[in-house]
């Protein structure tokens, strides 16, 4: 049994977890700064960094206590070193390296996006080759995994990320930040009565674009305001969400047709969206040889357990780092070479 302690602090969650063999969560302590950043309508990096250092030892102690594990029982320390906000990443990185030095444990560098995808293992084991739709606050991409721990990007967003578009529409509707969950709930109460454009549907690639949709929603709202019309906010939410999901579905279908894979992973913060999960489950019925493995809803947002899951992949390959490991705020997967 391999027990890995993992640290995550790339954005506004401070988290430490202990995961066994990359799939069994012994503990997952998460402190979220959401109420703080709601004051500003988005993450303020310096404020986020300050909160991380205030919480790092609390979540560390909690993770060890909940799992009832002593440092001596651990095999390695995994940590997110990118992508993310540099000041935020630094606190988790320094915390993890210090813990590793203190207890003489190897350090495993983890790509945050690999972490999001690896959380699918908390549902059931990913089977390879696999395809992942990674949809979060900062990323929207289709990722091919020919084998475990091997990632090539088939296509990605050219402008806003899907989660970002939820948050921007949320700001327009004066919803608290981040707005994804609220829009998801509103959409349930509304009807998709407004036809918004689905960008790039006909282009011959796997890329996404959400800024046109965002502009269309803004125009719609401003136009209604000018004419003094009241809008049905739930209908607007449902229509916007529908357009996002249409775009995601279209590209995913194309990728699944071009790359026959054994499993399909839905990962990232937006993977919590109930209608998206439902729509993809239905799409996957047309791909009998592909198992649908969405990340469990509890682990779609940022958390350290997912870092422990991805860390285990590196652990098996002995991909370790030294005490001089630094952050890499712009870290990304390689593009698929064509």
């Amino acid at each position, binding site marked *: 049994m391999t027990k890995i302690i993992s640290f995550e602090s790339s954005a506004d969650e*401070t988290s430490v977890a202990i995961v066994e063999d990359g799939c069994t969560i012994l503990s997952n*302590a*998460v*402190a*979220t*700064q959401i*109420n*703080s950043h709601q*004051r*500003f309508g988005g993450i*303020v990096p*310096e*404020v986020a*960094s*300050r*909160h*991380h*250092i*205030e*919480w*790092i*030892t*609390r*979540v*560390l*102690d*909690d993770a060890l206590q909940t799992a009832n594990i002593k*440092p001596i029982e651990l095999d390695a320390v995994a940590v997110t070193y990118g992508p993310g906000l540099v*000041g935020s990443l*630094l*606190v988790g*990185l*320094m*915390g993890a*390296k*210090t*813990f590793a*030095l*203190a*207890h003489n444990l190897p350090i495993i560098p983890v790509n945050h996006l690999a972490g999001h995808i690896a959380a699918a293992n908390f549902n059931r084991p990913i089977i390879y080759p696999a395809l992942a739709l990674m949809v979060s606050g900062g990323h929207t991409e289709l990722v091919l995994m020919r084998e475990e721990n091997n990632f090539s990007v088939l296509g990605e967003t050219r402008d806003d990320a899907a989660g970002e578009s939820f948050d921007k529409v949320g700001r327009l509707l004066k919803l608290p930040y981040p707005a994804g969950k609220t829009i998801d709930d509103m959409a349930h109460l509304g009807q998709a009565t407004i036809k918004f454009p689905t960008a790039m549907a006909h282009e011959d690639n796997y890329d996404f674009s959400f800024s046109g949709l965002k502009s269309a929603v803004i125009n719609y709202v401003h136009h209604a305001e000018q004419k003094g019309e009241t809008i049905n906010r739930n209908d607007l939410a449902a229509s916007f969400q529908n357009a996002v999901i249409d775009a995601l579905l279209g590209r995913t279908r194309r990728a699944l047709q071009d790359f026959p894979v054994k499993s399909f992973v839905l990962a990232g913060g937006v993977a919590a969206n109930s209608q998206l999960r439902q729509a993809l489950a239905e799409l996957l019925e047309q791909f009998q040889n592909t198992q649908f493995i969405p990340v469990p809803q509890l682990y779609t947002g940022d958390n350290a357990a997912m870092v422990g899951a991805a860390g285990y992949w590196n652990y098996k390959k002995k991909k370790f780092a*030294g*005490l*001089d*490991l*630094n*952050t890499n705020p712009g870290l990304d997967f390689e593009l698929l070479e064509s």
Partner: protein
Amino acid sequence: MKILAFDTSNQPLTVSLAEDNQVKRVFSTNEARNHSIQLLPAIQETIAAQNWTLTDIDRIIVAQGPGSFTGLRIGITVAKVLADTLKIDLVGVSSLAVLAEQVTSQGLIVPLFNARNENVFAGVYREGNNILADAHQPIANLFNWLQTYDEPIIFLGDTDVFSALITETFGARAHMLTPSESLPDGQGIVSLGIQASPVINIADFNPQYLRKTQAELNWLAAHPGEDNPENYVFEV
């Protein structure tokens, strides 16, 4: 008592080991390399060179601020996690007091860090006492305060930026140490930290930024009486 002390509050990086007040070994560099890369290898190598192990350490002393926000978080994260996980006593000292401690003078000692836009992080010290509290302030305010005294003044820290202004304002009364003469020497931090009592609650030990973020200042101005720090972060 075996002591591990470090200061990452500005560009210089200093790690020192001491047995009580006796400094045994100092690692220091003023290279503009990332403290995030250098600090832990420096701690590891310094301790190994002394033939100590981390578990021998009885007390950690860290420069708690003011200084570069990122630099402070690097040092203090390391200090907190080490102290927490190895149950070692933890002490924080003022990064300005550390510099003042290195100077022998009966007059006023003014360590200062450049905080841009004619602002400084600075305090005024006399024979070990902080007689004007460390603060983020316009350099003009500091100078006005100093003009109410007529003792000799020693400035140290980021003096290069302000040297013309200092000479113009205080003339022969002022002496300056250059930035390279103002590097933490690894001794001042030990002398200060050995006297202090360790922090009770490691989780509540955080950098002394001496400055709120602009976003918070703006928000507080627009929302008087609504600040509710207890509520901002919570465990799910």
